[in-house]
Every structure is written in C-alpha cells, then in structure tokens.
C-alpha cells in the first residue's frame, strides 16, 4: 500500500433486529452519511452475538467489530442486552489481555429512533480503526489477501 493510498478498514457491525438495525435503517432514510466500510449483520438480539462471531469476523478480514443493541432496559426480550453486556465486557477484557489493541471492539446502544447516533457512531468507529491500522494480531494468515 502506498503512503498516499489511505487504509480502508473493514468494519463488521452486528445490529440487533429491534433497535439498532432499525436505527441504521433510519439513518439511511434520513440520508445521513456513514462510510461504506461498515458491513451490517442483523442478529435477533444483542445477546445472540456469540463471542465466536467476533473472532470469526476478525479471522475473515474485519479490522474492527462493533455490536449495537437496544439501550439497557429496552431489550425486546426484556433482558438479552444485559447478558450481552457482561459477555462483551469479559470478552473485550480477554482480548485486551491477549494484547489485541483496545478499540478494535466496541459496544454501542442505539435505539430505533437514533439514526443520527448510528451514523455518528459508525463515522467515529471507522475513524478509530483507520488510525489503528489493519488487524494483524487476530488475522488468519490463510485469509489474508497477500
């Protein structure tokens, strides 16, 4: 990659079906801009996010992974995001413990009405990851594009 050619990160955003996915939708209908680097994967609830999904995303070329769910207290299934919160806290802590750069993973609560927050979060996250550079510590060399 030449110096002029700016690094374009790949971001995987796991979005809860009930709030954040709708929030993403809203940001689209409102024509709010966020980078095309963000690939959204819809999940039924933030607590559906198996830690394995995050690692697999990194394996297959993601440079940053973000989970978006309903605000605590607003979960469609009442408590799913509370469990997700604990799991993600521990997982992120473990990734940090293994020496993976802080900031490559993130959780943000985005409601269906917060289209603007969704776009702003994505813009900010892409910026953070662009600064961090490509994911090297959790990449699978067999998947790298050479």
């Amino acid at each position, binding site marked *: 990659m030449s110096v002029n050619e700016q690094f374009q990160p790949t971001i995987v955003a796991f979005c809860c079906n009930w709030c954040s996915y709708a929030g993403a939708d809203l940001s689209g209908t409102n024509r709010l801009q966020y980078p095309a680097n963000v690939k959204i994967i819809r999940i039924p609830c933030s607590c559906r996010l198996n830690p394995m999904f995050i*690692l697999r995303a990194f394996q297959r070329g993601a440079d940053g992974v973000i989970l978006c769910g309903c605000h605590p207290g607003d979960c469609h299934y009442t408590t799913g995001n509370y469990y997700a919160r604990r799991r993600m806290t521990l997982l992120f802590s*473990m990734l940090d*413990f293994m*020496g993976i750069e802080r900031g490559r993973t*993130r959780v943000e609560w985005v409601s269906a009405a917060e289209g603007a927050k969704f776009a702003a979060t994505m813009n900010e996250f892409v910026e953070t990851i662009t600064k961090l550079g490509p994911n090297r510590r959790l990449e699978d060399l067999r998947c790298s594009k050479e």
Partner: protein
Amino acid sequence: MQQRVKEKALELLRNGTVDRVIGWKTGEFFYDLTPAVFETAEEIEKDFVFSGFSGANLSKYAIAQSRAAGKTAIFLKPCDSYSFQQLLKEHRILRENIYIVGIACEGMLDMEKIRAAGCEGVVSVKENGEELIVETLYGDRTLSRKDCLLERCAVCKSKKVVIFDEMLGEQGDEQETARFDRVAELEAMTPEERFAFWRGELSRCIRCNACRNVCPACSCEKCVFDNDKSGVRNKAAADPFEENLFHIIRAFHVAGRCTDCGECSRVCPQNIPLHLLNRKFIKDINELYGTYQAGADMETKSPLTDFTTDDCEPSIVHERGGVK
C-alpha cells in the same frame, strides 16, 4: 494420611457402603498414578495409592460413574471438591449415587518441577517435612517441597472441602493467595508485550486437547471444536489465529464455571500457562461483578447467567487503568 485414605477405601467397599471407589492407582514408578475405578478390596490392597503425586482431579469421572449401578465412593481434595460441586450444580452428577470422602491436603507435587530442578532418572522421592529427598540414577538431591508443588498448590486458594459425606483430616479454610499476581503482572504490560507473551506461549500449542478433555468444566457431550457443522472445527492449529481462537473460546466457555482447579496447566504437554486465561476471567468477574468462586456453593448464580441493571459498560475495559 496416605494410609488412612487407603483404609477408608477398603472399609467403604467391605462394609457395603459403596460398590466401587474412584481413586488413584499405582504405576510403574512412584509418581505416575492413574485415576482408576476399584471394585474389589483385593484391587485396593494391591494398587490403591494416595500420595503427594495424587494430583489428578477425580471429579470428572463422577459424571459417568454416578450413572453406573449402585453407589460409588470418590476421594476429593479441597480443590477437587469445588469442581465436583460445580458439576453437581450443573446437574452433571447424580449426587445420590456418590459417597464423597474429603481429604485434607498439603499440596500436591509436580514431577515436571522436580525434573526441571535438574533431577534426571528419578528413582524415588521421599517427603521429609518441608524437604524432598530425591533419589536419582545419578545421585541423591534434596529439594524444598514448597518449590516442587503443582502451580495451583503453590498458590492454593482454599483448604476447605466444600462438599463431602465424610472428611479425613482437618477441614480447612479459604485462604488469601497470590494466584492473581501473574495476571496482574501481565495486565501491567503494554499490549505489544502481552501479545508477544501469548504468541510465544500459544504458538507451542499442539492441539492435543488434553486441557479440554481433563477440564471438569468442559463436560459437553460434543465440543463445538469437534463439531463439523460449527464452522470452527479445527483439529490442528493450522494458523496462529486458530490457537488464539481455541484458547480464548475455551476459556470463555468455562468462564464463571471454572473453579481454578489448575488441571489444564498440569496436563499441558507443552507447559503453556493456560490457567492464566481462566484466572483473568475470574479476576475480572471478581472486580466487576463482585467476588465469585465457582463451585463454592450450590445457590449463587453464575456471573454470566446473571446481571444487574447497573452493570459496567464494556467500554470500561478500554477506560480503566493499565498501559494502553
């Protein structure tokens, strides 16, 4: 104590309290004891051993044996009893079929450490108070017992047998230990240093699955890593990523359930300090959600199947102290 344990095993079989006993069986040498199921008094007289090398945690064997006809006796050291109670809590053991004999424990010895101290061709080890007299083909050596303990025993968290029908020796207590010191040391490093540390350790992994198969918390009938359809099945660590994936996910799957029995590190043929991953989770859970010891009781909810509405946000990981 060694004699008392054996006599107890004999007694329980002879008086009909149990139909079989899970214990440790003598080997070719003094240190290579095998977990075994004894069904007759003759077998016990001949082969049953309890010694400083009875490190193996027998609790996992209770899963299968509690489903055999009749009653089974099991000997549990304090740390083993946490594993046992945790399995019980997860409904993996049929309690009514098991008779538990708790054993007070002075710490178990690690043959690897004795070898690493430069003892080759070891013929016998005699315990003499705080000293070990090691007889080898190349002369005798004296080592400090303290230096030859299994890692988990050197930082023993509890001398308390948390579940038993009968106790041999003095019941002990939970104790303050330095078991999180190494985790804290790593936390104080830079991410680059931590990454280099774990790469160095995990790159030695040969994916023999000994850590998983010995782990009392890993009692799934079919592991996700053996399941063809899981998409993550990997038999060999064909890439550094797979080494990370396996060990992160394995630690995560037992988080909140791992009692820190230390078997994973004891059995690792490559001497990878796998217990550090589990302890990291335990330390985090203690710090973020309140002190929790898996297997300590039957009632407390595991931190990962529980929550409070004012739990910390995941971003705490990125905000709290330590080098960024």
